């Protein structure tokens, strides 16, 4: 029996996990009571995190394509197959697509090899973190929000924007603590929470996500709720002057200004207030980056920029965004790929997770993958990309390597090896090192710490001495990013509301699949994902079902201007009338590409006007 303290790979909260191992087999995961984030708790994913380690789809040997089928081969044979396409590809035609579950050291290794090959690197993170980070940088001049959840626990008034906090249980836990201490919570969202009766729920249609923060700013400025410290900031006078002329502000029938004024008034007079911005806010709407920037601006005007929590992201979404920040322009390659455009890509290397399962329109991506010359997959599981792969290299889980990940508070933490990887599986940086060696790249660091001493590591936003401390003293997690706000105010660039057609009966939006969070063991989760995916489930509000005479479980056709698809309708009590929800896992091949909007500024899912028909 042995125990190893490490970090949960479940989401960007980064909880402490204690792994129990016996004779090389992971037995169970437990929480760590002295961990600064989790303080002795874990969510269902954390408690069951070892189940992914024993998953039957685990890859243990390299595979290469021979006559339409994939054959298990030795590492040398697999590397031999990979060598030629990488060596012969034209500069800029190799693309590394990196998952947010990839560790910082593996990302540094990818950057090193990509630099040598003159390849492009893009992260495929659809959680909204890249959007949040860009908005934070442009408005507040920093990369992270609050440094802990204490701001929530101690708050008396909390605003939530598009936050499905059940996906980020530590945030939900802090919220429960605050509520039990008497805090009032106001939720601005398209989704209702029927079981949260104590909360004030303000319905915001997804097409008006861009309008709400501008109205908040307007009310704050009008009523003089601006703190003196905020009013003296650079750019404030210019912004205030812009609101002298209010003709550019659109009117809204749903978000009444009077209501916003009341909310701003109570927020401004509350001594302890805090804000949660969730992944639905960051990914839904007309222009995710702009609406998030405007929201941060509104919150800065109200003086709460130090009391923000962003509930979004996967295990290392924030590390990925930090390390790939200099390569932001490469994200256009991925946007093209998601829209079926492969003209620039000769070799695609996917690292860390299933790009197809993460992609909002997997049908378009499947078409594109079929056209890419060579697809190389580095993953732990037989994922959806395998049918398109020319070579597959088995990588390792969080429990099988030493590395670091960054959580939503900018906290760098260790993944510590608890068990030996199975078969030929090895960390991505080890596979990339073997490839680099064949290609003639001599300098390839060995230990995780050595990666921080390289050019890539040294130029990262992380404090090198903090990283060294983390490794050399085997110490507790350190707060590495302490940032000051440097407010820059900007006016919205375009129209704040969408034009909706006359014949619209419902709008479709994407959301996260609840099966990710509501089941127990990993195997259970996969079974449910498969079943739901096969059934093509569409969430519909009960009033919409009643109006159309459709029973929950019945079949419906969703018709857009560009196409239609048949789904199984399921009553969803969280949805207001007029909104239907497609879970991201749902195969949506017949849903038009216009669902993926705003790719220039990140990934926002524009609500699509639809008609719902009973089949």
């Amino acid at each position: 029996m042995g125990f190893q303290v490490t970090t949960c790979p479940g989401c960007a909260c980064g909880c402490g996990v204690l792994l129990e191992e016996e004779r090389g087999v992971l037995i169970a995961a437990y929480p760590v009571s002295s961990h600064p984030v989790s303080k002795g708790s874990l969510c269902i994913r954390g408690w069951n995190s070892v189940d992914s380690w024993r998953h039957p789809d685990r890859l243990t040997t390299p595979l290469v394509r021979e006559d339409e089928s994939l054959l298990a081969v030795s590492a040398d044979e697999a590397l031999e197959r990979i060598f030629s396409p990488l060596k012969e590809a034209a500069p800029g035609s190799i693309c590394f697509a990196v998952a947010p579950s990839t560790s910082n050291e593996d990302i540094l290794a990818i950057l090193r090899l990509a630099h040598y090959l003159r390849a492009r690197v893009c992260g495929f993170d659809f959680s909204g973190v890249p959007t949040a980070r860009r908005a934070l940088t442009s408005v507040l001049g920093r990369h992270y929000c609050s440094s802990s959840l204490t701001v929530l626990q101690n708050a008396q008034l909390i605003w939530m924007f598009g936050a499905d906090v059940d996906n980020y249980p530590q945030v939900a836990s802090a919220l429960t603590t605050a509520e039990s201490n008497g805090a009032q919570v106001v939720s601005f969202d398209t989704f209702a929470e029927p079981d949260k009766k104590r909360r004030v729920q303000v319905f915001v249609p997804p097409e008006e996500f861009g309008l709400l923060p501008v109205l908040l700013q307007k009310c704050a400025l009008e009523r003089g709720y601006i703190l003196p410290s905020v009013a003296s900031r650079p750019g404030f006078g210019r912004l205030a002057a812009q609101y002298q002329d209010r003709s550019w502000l659109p009117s809204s029938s749903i978000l009444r200004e009077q209501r916003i004024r009341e909310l701003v008034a109570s927020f401004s007079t509350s001594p302890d207030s805090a804000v949660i911005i969730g992944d639905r806010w960051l990914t839904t709407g007309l222009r995710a980056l702009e609406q998030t920037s405007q929201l941060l601006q509104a919150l800065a005007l109200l003086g709460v920029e130090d009391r923000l929590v962003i509930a979004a992201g996967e295990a290392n979404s924030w590390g990925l965004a930090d390390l790939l920040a200099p390569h932001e322009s490469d994200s256009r390659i991925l946007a093209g790929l998601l829209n079926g455009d492969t003209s620039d890509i000769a070799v695609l290397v996917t690292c860390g997770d299933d790009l197809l399962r993460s992609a909002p329109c997997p049908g378009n991506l499947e078409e594109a993958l079929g056209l890419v010359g060579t697809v190389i997959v580095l993953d732990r599981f037989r994922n959806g990309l395998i049918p398109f792969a020319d070579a597959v290299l088995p990588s390792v889980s969080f429990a099988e390597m030493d590395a670091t990940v960054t959580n939503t508070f900018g906290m760098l933490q260790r993944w510590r090896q608890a068990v030996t990887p199975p078969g030929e599986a090895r960390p991505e940086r080890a596979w990339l090192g073997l490839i680099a060696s064949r290609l003639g790249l001599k300098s390839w660091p060995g230990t995780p710490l050595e990666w921080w001493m390289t050019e890539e590591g040294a130029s990262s936003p992380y404090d090198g001495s903090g990283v060294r401390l983390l490794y050399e003293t085997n110490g507790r997690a350190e707060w590495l990013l302490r940032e000051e706000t440097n407010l820059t105010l900007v006016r919205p660039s375009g129209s704040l509301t969408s034009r909706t057609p006359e014949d619209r009966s419902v709008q479709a939006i994407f959301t996260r699949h609840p099966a990710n969070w509501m089941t127990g063991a990993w195997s259970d989760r996969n079974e449910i994902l498969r079943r739901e995916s096969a059934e093509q489930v569409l969430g519909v509000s009960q009033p919409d079902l009643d109006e159309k005479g459709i029973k929950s479980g019945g079949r419906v056709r969703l018709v857009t201007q560009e196409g239609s698809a048949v789904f199984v309708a399921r009553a969803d009590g969280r949805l207001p009338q007029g909104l239907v929800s497609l879970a991201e896992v749902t195969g949506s091949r017949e849903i038009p590409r216009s669902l993926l909007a705003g790719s220039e500024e990140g990934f926002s899912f524009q609500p699509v006007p639809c008609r719902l028909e009973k089949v």
Partner: protein
Amino acid sequence: MDRLILRKSDVQAFLESFLADYRVVAPRHIAGSDFVFDDYRPGQEVRFDFVNTLVPPKNLFFQARETLFQISGTVHPTILPKPSAKPLAVFGLRSCDASGLAFLERFFAQRGFEDDTVTARIRSSLRMVLSCHTPGDNCFCVCCDGGPALTSGFDLQLADLGNRLLAEVGSESGRAAVRRRPDLFSAATDADYSEKVRQLAAVDQTFNRRSYISSGMKRISLARLTEEFWQDCAADCRGCGGCCFVCPTCSCFSVTDKPDDEDHYRRERWRDACLYEGFTREASGHNPRARKAERLKRRFFHKLSYQYVELMGRHGCVGCGRCVTTCMGKLGIPDFLARVHDECK
């Protein structure tokens, strides 16, 4: 009851006398204030300065995942003999956990369906209990007959008297344990025992938490709680199952048969949680407790109803406080009982 004195500096030598015949387990520091019960290695420092472990020692007996048996052959299958394992000698068990083990032993032996994996481990083990003199922030064993010291259900019970331990022998196994190194023990005086009694009386005053356990049990047993109350609790429950995994008395599990190769199969048992949606889902897909509120109601009924007291001899909470530490929804037993109390005011 025999009362002896063991010097703290002799504990290592005492534990090492078991290594040939027992798998010796003792608390080990892992990070911050966290300890776990892990295999004792010769020369390892023995720690007395821990409150309790968040990972309950029940997982030594009722493992989070284990092979119950292996089968060889498909035409004429044979159950392979189990590999022999040394009995456990656990040093530093807290009183609440020892009470939990007694509960588990009864559970796994009840109604004529004895699970010899867990009961055999418990019965063959040597339980060296360390009574508490500093309760944790979330401890409430004084409300639950779980501690801070025991009157039965241990082999040796040790009380910290500074640089010495007062050892009380609670069973024949405990007596045999002392006989392994009689040179390390000396007779305790009445003053030593008085010191322990004085300590326990002082400990009782230092508990932060109290629980409304008897009124809560009454209301749960008599179904005096409304559906709306359970819905409110369900809204705060994150469904993580953590309370079940850390609870010394919880025993939810599932089993599965899986092949090792064409000729060998194994039956595995792993920890499960009654708060998981899949726990009671039937093969047909029907789930008698599909809603979280129903699962929560069932859990607390199992923990605190008179009906289960009758079956198990005591209620299902020993007051260790782990559920308070691990619950993100403020639904640990004392917090839940406080909700019940408020609801019924």
